[in-house]
Each structure stands twice: as structure tokens, then as C-alpha cells.
């Protein structure tokens, strides 16, 4: 699917209060897109597929009547390879369907579901902070990283990259 055909793809998401605090008030995140991806990543780490699948539309997409509805455009992802890899991976892991790797609609919807879970967690952690919770966020990230220990997989990932280099990318 070409980028031009998906340029108008969009997805409603639940814009919790923490979005404005993190972006506008404390200015820790540069944009709503950055915090959306961050929330989705946190949500993926702290929640699970059955839980996010129970969210009904109004829950993870917000509501217009109470001002909690935000809109995320795929065009904000098209020139950010890392964000696209994140979106594709979360969507693929969530659906276990390879077609999710190439469907922006699916990827945005799955991200919106996990972003809802992540934003709720971040709101609980930092929503009442009087000052920018910068150091708290750093600790929050560190704690998860230390608990996960992904650095052990570096060798395996290097092997995968090498295999693809010789097998696919050169073809």
C-alpha cells in the first residue's frame, strides 16, 4: 500500500488530560504524536491483548461531547521509520497476522488501544505532579528497562539482521 493512498488514514484516540500536561504544560514531549507513541509503548508493556480488546469505541477513541476525542493522522508516521517499525510491530504482535504489517488503519487502531492503557498508567504515575516529572519519567523508563533486560538479545538480533542482509536485501 503506497503512502499516498494512506495519507488520509486517521484514527480517533482518547486524549487524556496527561497529554496536554506532558506536551503543553510541562513541555517534556515535543508533540502529541510523540506522547501518543510513548503512551502506546508503555501501554504495550503494562497491559495485554485481552484487556485492550475489551475497550469499546468510546473508551479508547474518546468522546466529542466531553472533549476527550483526539485524532491521529498516519501522515505523522510516514517520515518516521522508527515510529513505523514500532506501529507495525505492536500491531503484528497484537493481531498475530502478517497483514497488520502493511495496514496503517490496523496499526493506528491497535496503537490507540494501547495508548489508552498507557495514558491511564502515566496519569496515575505523574498526573498530580506539581512540576515537570522529568526525573520521574527517566526512573520509570529505567526501571522497566532494567526489569526487561532486552540487552541480552542483541546478539540474536544482529544475527537476524545479518541473515536478512545476505538473503533478502541483496536480492
Amino acid at each position, binding site marked *: *500500500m503506497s503512502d499516498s493512498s494512506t495519507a488520509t488514514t486517521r484514527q480517533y484516540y482518547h486524549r487524556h488530560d496527561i497529554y496536554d500536561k506532558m506536551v503543553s504544560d510541562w*513541555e*517534556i*514531549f*515535543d*508533540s502529541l504524536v*510523540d*506522547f501518543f*507513541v*510513548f503512551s*502506546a*509503548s*508503555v501501554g*504495550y*508493556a503494562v497491559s495485554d491483548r485481552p484487556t485492550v480488546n475489551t475497550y469499546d469505541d468510546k473508551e479508547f477513541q474518546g468522546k466529542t461531547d466531553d472533549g476527550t476525542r483526539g485524532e491521529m493522522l498516519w501522515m505523522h508516521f510516514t517520515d518516521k*521509520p*522508527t515510529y*513505523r*517499525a*514500532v506501529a*507495525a*510491530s*505492536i500491531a*503484528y*504482535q497484537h493481531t498475530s497476522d*502478517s*497483514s497488520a*504489517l*502493511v495496514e496503517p488503519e490496523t496499526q493506528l487502531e491497535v496503537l490507540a488501544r494501547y495508548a489508552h492503557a498507557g495514558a491511564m498508567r502515566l496519569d496515575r504515575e505523574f498526573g498530580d505532579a506539581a512540576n*515537570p516529572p*522529568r526525573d520521574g*519519567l*527517566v526512573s520509570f*523508563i*529505567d526501571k*522497566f*528497562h532494567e526489569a*526487561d533486560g*532486552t540487552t541480552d*538479545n*542483541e546478539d*540474536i*538480533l*544482529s544475527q*537476524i*539482521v545479518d*541473515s*536478512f542482509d545476505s*538473503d*533478502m*536485501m541483496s*536480492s
Partner: protein
Amino acid sequence: MQLHRLHLTNFRQFRSETVEFALGDDQNVTVVHGQNGSGKTTLKNAFLWVLYEESNFNLRPDKLASQGALAEVNAGETVAVEAALEFEHEDVDYEVTRTYEYQRQASDDYLGEIVDEELSLSYETADGKRGTRQNPQRSIEQILPERLSDLFFFDGEYITQLSEGHSQDEVKEAIQNIMGLTIIERSIRHLGEVEGRFESEVQEHGSSELSELLDTRSELRNEVEDLTGSIETKKESRQRLREEISEIERKLEGIEEAAELQEERNRLESRQDALQAEIAEINESIDAEISKKGHLPFVMPAIEATAQDLDDLRERGEIPSEVSNQFVDKLLAQGECICGRRLEEGTHPYDSVEAYRSDAAENGVDQAAIRIISHLTSIQDEQAEYLDTVDELLAERSDLRDELTSVDEQLDEIQGELEEMNITDPETGETPSELESARTRKKSEREELKREIWDLERDIETREERLEEIGEEIDEARQEESQAELARRRMQATSKVQQQLEASFEQLQNQVREYSNDLVSKTFDEIATKGYEAEITDEFELRIRDQLQGEYLEVDKSRGERQIASLTFIGSLVQIARERYESDTDAEYFSGGIYPIVMDSPFGALDDEHRRTVSRVIPRMAEQVVVLVTDSQWRGPVASEMNEIASRQYRLDFDEGDGDTSYPRSRIVEEEISQKVNQ
């Protein structure tokens, strides 16, 4: 409109009968008389049926067919029931023919079942042009509107109704019909409904919300203005304090014992500012790292698991597919292979090419896999970079904070030393201790002002946000208000039009009533028994006044005065229709016309004297009159009065048959002049 001829075929008891109608200024009356049940009412209803497909028979329309005609055909065969009316209207001769085809269902069926219907209206103009109207019913409606049929085809019952007490509705309806005013009445009623709808709209959209919102906005704007003024004042105070502090510092520099401490303080404060700026810069860098890369530690497991799965697919040879599915699809869509062979569905070449499609991996998955894998290294690098960079920034910030703490302590020490220095400056008489205390106080005041300004700015921000919301609410309320205003104006316009229409309606109705009243009064006075006068009251009642008593009297039903009043009233309406037709002025609702009158049993149960009187009225009612009477009504004074003007007279001969070999049948027999005289 002038009636020429009516021919009935198998129409009830008439098998094939014709009536030709009297024409002319002096002899304009056609009389058909017969015993009760011989077919007079059937004749009147034949007019309504042929013109409007209406029949006032108490029987069902499926009993129109002649029993005798049905008896002559076998089951399954049909009988045509037909009425044909020839008339002239505006110098064009017309013939309207309505036919029902009845099918006999069984040997004992004497009613039949309608299997076909037809209506035609043929015409011939004065210059010989002939044709048939495409929409005959609409043409008939234009010549003689159905709403007027009660006025021109009526019976004795209608005549009695008009002159009965509480006859306003009938009289009003007759007047409205003759003037075409019913359309105005409907418009007035409809406008009333429309006004009601607009009123509901006004109630729905109109409210005091807009003015309340505007008041709130005005209050908020005033508050913002006041707060802005307070901030300006406090900023000026801060600036003044800053200048006073600078002045104190200059004085301290001017006191020899304190100068060195003050210079050191200046240096330390500069360093303090620099350190704070550096720390702020580091915080911004940490923010940037969190914003762009902080998500990676959370999502790396998903990326790694996806990469692992993709590698499994690669190992199984499912990606990359040997031939791009897109390429295969393109060839199949083009219908031609790269070797030039035609690819048609169901053929061997088509199936061969289609077999190259790989159903293991979806279109685009190859590219997506490559995109993820090719960024895997950089994603890992980004995560490592985040962790390293943030660690470095935190360490650097920690060092800066330590130094800042040290600077703060040194500044506190300097402050303490100066506060204990009680040497008096000979020029100013002030001690460093006094100056330092004042400086500390002013510094504190300045900090307090800074906090106050910050609070005020938050207050303004809150109000600005509310103002923005109120702006949107005002826009919405204005929209509602404009809808309400529009509905209000429409409601007023509707009401005005309704009032004007009502006034016009009343005026027109009264004009017709007054005109009709004049005609009724005049004709009644000429014809009726002396001592009575008739009028149409303001309340549209057709009343007869006893001149002697000067009071309205309920005249006995059997008296001819009531019939005369009713007939003169109908005659007045016919005259109004004719005058409107002949008038040069444009008629908005009804252009009028010249119409005949067909009346069934107009004499009721009157005595001879009153029958004679009524007979004098009839020829004056319209340019052409058809009178259907019983033999008993016809004999005596009626016949003697009408003989001179009834140039066509018919007798109905009725034979009720034996029900076995013969069936009810009426014949219409024209009577000779000599016979007429002998009646």
C-alpha cells in the same frame, strides 16, 4: 355550458333511451315526469356519473347494469353500460362518454362484475376541427368543477336544507364554492398550522442564553484587563526593587570593608545564573531524549519478537516470495504474459501464471519486513543512545547541581558576613548590615512579586481559556438566535398574510352574500306570497321575515315560501357565476360560467298554490333548466304554469317486468305539444 342530449345504454332500468334538452331564451325548460320509481333520480344521477363518476344511488355502483341486458347474455359474456352526454361549451361541441363493461359471472348473476372502464371526451369546434381530449376528467373539471355539482344537480332535499334553520353551513359552502373561495379557506387553515410550527421553532431556539453569555464574556474581559493591569503594576514594582537592590549593591561596593564581599557576590551570582541556565539546557536535552526515544525500552520486546517471527518466515522461504504477487496480479489483469501469450481465465497459460502467486505472504509484507529489519540496528542503537545520553546528562546535571549548591552556600556566607558588619559609611550614615538587611528584604519582596505575577498569569490563562469556550458558545447561541429571529419574522409574516387573507375572505364572502341577498329579496318579492320577505342574514342564514310582525318566523315546511327562497338563492348563485364569466375583470379564483340546472322533485309536498308559485321561479333560475317531477306533481298548476316554457317534455313509462322473462325497464317517451296542452 348548454346541455344538448343524454343517451343511456343499459344504465339501470334504461336499455337505450335518449333525452334531448330544451334550448332557447324563452323556452329553456325540459320536463321529465313519471311515477315514483320510474327513473327520475336515476336520470339526475346519470349526469353525475357521466361527468364525475359519482352516483348518489343508495345501491352500489356495481348495480348500474341493466338486469334485462345481463339476462340476455350468457355467463362470461359482457354488457356495456354507457352514458353519453352531448353539450356545448364556449362554442365547442363536446360528447362525454363513460362506459363500464360488466361481465355476467353465472346464470343467476344479474349484477355482473366490472371488467373494464373507459371515459372519453370528444369535441368539435365551430370551424369543424375534431378531436379527443387526452385527459378527459381534467377537461370536465375545467368546464364544470365538481365542487359546483351540488349547486347544479340537486334534489328537493337540498332545497329544503338551504331554507331550514341553522342552514349557515350549507349557505356558506354554496357561496364559497361558487366563488372558488374554498382554496382561500384552505390556505388560511394551512397558514394557521404553519404559524404554529414557526412558533414552536421560536420557542425551541429563542432564549436569554445569548445575552447571558455576552454579559459573562464582558465580565471576563474586564477581569482579564484588571489582571493584566495588576501584572503590569507588579512588574513595575519588581523593576523598581531591582533598581533599589542595584543601588544598595553599589553602596556596598562603595564601603571599603564590604566592597570585596560584594564583588565576590557579583561573581557568584553570575555563576549561579550560568549554572541554572546549563541545568535548564540539560533538562531540555533530557526531555528531547524522552520525547523521541523514551518509548523504545517499552516497545523493544515487540520489535524483537516481530523480527524473530519475520526471520522464521524467511527461513521457511515464505519471504521474500519468488515472484512478486503484485507482478503476477498485474500480468493477469493485463491479460498478457511476458512471453506474449494471451492470459484468459480458465486457460492453461492463465493457470500457470497464477500458480506463481505465493499465498504464504501478503502483498507488501516483504517490504514491511525489510523496513523493520533494516531499522532494527538503528532502533537498537537509538535505545542504547537514549540510555547512554540520559545517563551522561544526569551525571552532568548532578555535577552542576553540586556546584550550584556550593555557590548558594557561599552566597549565604557573604550575606551573613555583611549582616554582621556595623561600620557606618561616613557619606551616607548607613552600615553594611542595614544595607544587606534592606537588600535581603527587597530580594524577598521581589521573589514574592514574581510568584504573584505567576499566579496572576495563571488566572489570566484560565480566563482566556474560558473566553475561548464562551466565544464558541456565543457563536452557537447567535446561530440559534438567528434561527429564532428568522422563525419569529416568518411567524409574523405568516400571521399577517393569514389576517389579510381572512379579511379578503370575509370581504369576498360578504360581497357575494349581499349580492345574493339582493337577488333573493327581489325575486322573492316578485313571486312569493305577499307579506313575506326573504333575506340572507349576516350570519349566512336564509331566513323568511314576516313583514307584519317584523320578526323572523319559522315558516311551516310545507309552505312554498321556503322552497322559493332556496330556489331564488340557487338562482342568484347561477347568476353570479354567469356575471363573473361575462365580466372583463380577471377572476383570481373562479372565472365563472354559464351552467344549466338539473333538479329532481323540487316541489316537495306543497299545495297547489305554492306549486304554481314555485313553477314561476324555475325558469328564471338559469338559462337552461331540467326538471324531474312525479306525475302527481306535474299535473295541474305546475303543468299549466310550465307548458309555455317547457319546450321539451318527456314521460317515463316504467314496466317492472315479471322477473322471469322480462325485467324492470323504463322508456323515455317524448310528448307532443298537443299532449302537453292536454295535461
